[in-house]
């Protein structure tokens, strides 16, 4: 057992973990049940978390490796989050089980490429499965979020 500090959504949590404990299980144990197991093999994206802004399948990640790393889970996003807002507005959810994973993938993409269009969005979401088939709404939500960010930067740049 190893004591580690997980920095989850900005909050430092000291936990003791086994060497082979998965980040997925440790985060769920800390109450972050927006992180979910859908496949256990990196193929569905339900367990997505961001580690230093990079998406990771927490079902394949050992918790010991994330000592001190800044982690983001969907439930820890700020109350007014542009990607969340656009998902709600575009009705990008059915059962909703897969959606937190898509939201975090969207965050990663837009942070890297605010100019992302449909092709880039699709390429980035290629490993996330929505069995309910909400892909079109999800794509719309991220197109709108990208537009919103581009507009925000434009207004910021405009002289007051």
């Amino acid at each position: 057992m190893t004591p580690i500090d997980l920095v989850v959504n900005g909050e430092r949590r000291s936990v003791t973990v086994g060497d082979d404990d998965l980040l997925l299980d440790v985060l769920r144990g800390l109450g972050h049940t927006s992180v979910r197991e859908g496949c256990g093999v990196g193929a569905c994206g339900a367990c997505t978390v961001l580690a230093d802004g990079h998406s990771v399948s927490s079902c394949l990640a050992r918790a010991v490796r994330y000592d001190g790393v800044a982690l983001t889970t969907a439930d820890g996003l700020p109350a007014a989050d542009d990607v969340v807002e656009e998902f709600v507005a575009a009705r990008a959810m059915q059962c909703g089980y897969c959606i937190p994973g898509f939201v975090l993938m969207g965050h990663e993409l837009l942070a890297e490429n605010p100019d992302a269009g449909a092709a880039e969005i699709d390429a980035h979401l290629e490993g996330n499965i929505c069995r309910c088939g909400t892909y079109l709404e999800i794509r719309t939500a991220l197109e709108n979020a990208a537009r919103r960010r581009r507009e925000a930067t434009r207004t910021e740049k405009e002289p007051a």
Partner: protein
Amino acid sequence: MTATLHRPRDLGTALDLLAGLGDPMVFGGGTAVQILLKQGVLFASDLVDIAGVPGLADLVATPGGLRAGTMVTLRRMETDPLVHDRAPLLAQVYGRVANPRVRNTASVGGNIAHGDYRLDPPTALLVLDARVELSSAAGARHVPIREFFTGFQETTVRSGEMVTAIDVPTQPLGGAAFTKLSSLAANDWPVASAAVLVTAADVGDREIRIGLGALAPTPVYVAVALPATASDDDAVDAALAAVEPLIDPLPDVRGGVAHKRRLGRVAVADATRAAWHDTPHDLRGTPGEEAIDDRRPTFLRRHRRH
């Protein structure tokens, strides 16, 4: 039952562990190891996690190209400007592996050491003539990637050794293309993939270099020389003739031998046609990158959606 995890903080310790432990295994990105553990088919006594070893995640320019430490992630290879600049084909191929999450975690060394015959990156590393650095407590040796894959799920890595880096020469001028074909869902593992690079040859005017994935028990490489005046069709015919004896697919749920062979020919033909077509007439004069730059979106459309 469960393997003991070691987390060395320097290379010497890591190599000593590999030399001294019973049945050790390197833990790189862990994306493959974790799945094998879950499936109950991995029987190592010890896992040596090399994430904490300094220097192994360095990606640097070298006089002849670039050098990627074993722990550089696939995603970094896909997105780093250095790779885009020196080996755009490589960046493109890394960008087609699995999905962004796996690419964020998986390492270049773990990827090749995994030795799966369906892996994408080896196809590009083969045509680029990359060199693998293997280190052990006894020292380092360098193995051409073309000699790295020795059999079905077998590589040249010896016990006590680990991959420490991959050296990739700058991509020579000429057209390059990668085609990955799946036979079921679009984002599935490939049933056939081919990286093709057309470049100046020692004999003949040009060389078509071909790296194949998923089409034989290991990734395989072949090259064929052709005069620059040859047509696209001639180039495709020459490429197909060259790969024919090498295609030796394994049947599975994604298709039988005949089907994979068929798709292998399509992958080679499509990639060769595109690469040959994009090759400027005078390979010495024209900057080759022009034909290659920023083509990922077109690629996605052309090869993924159909």
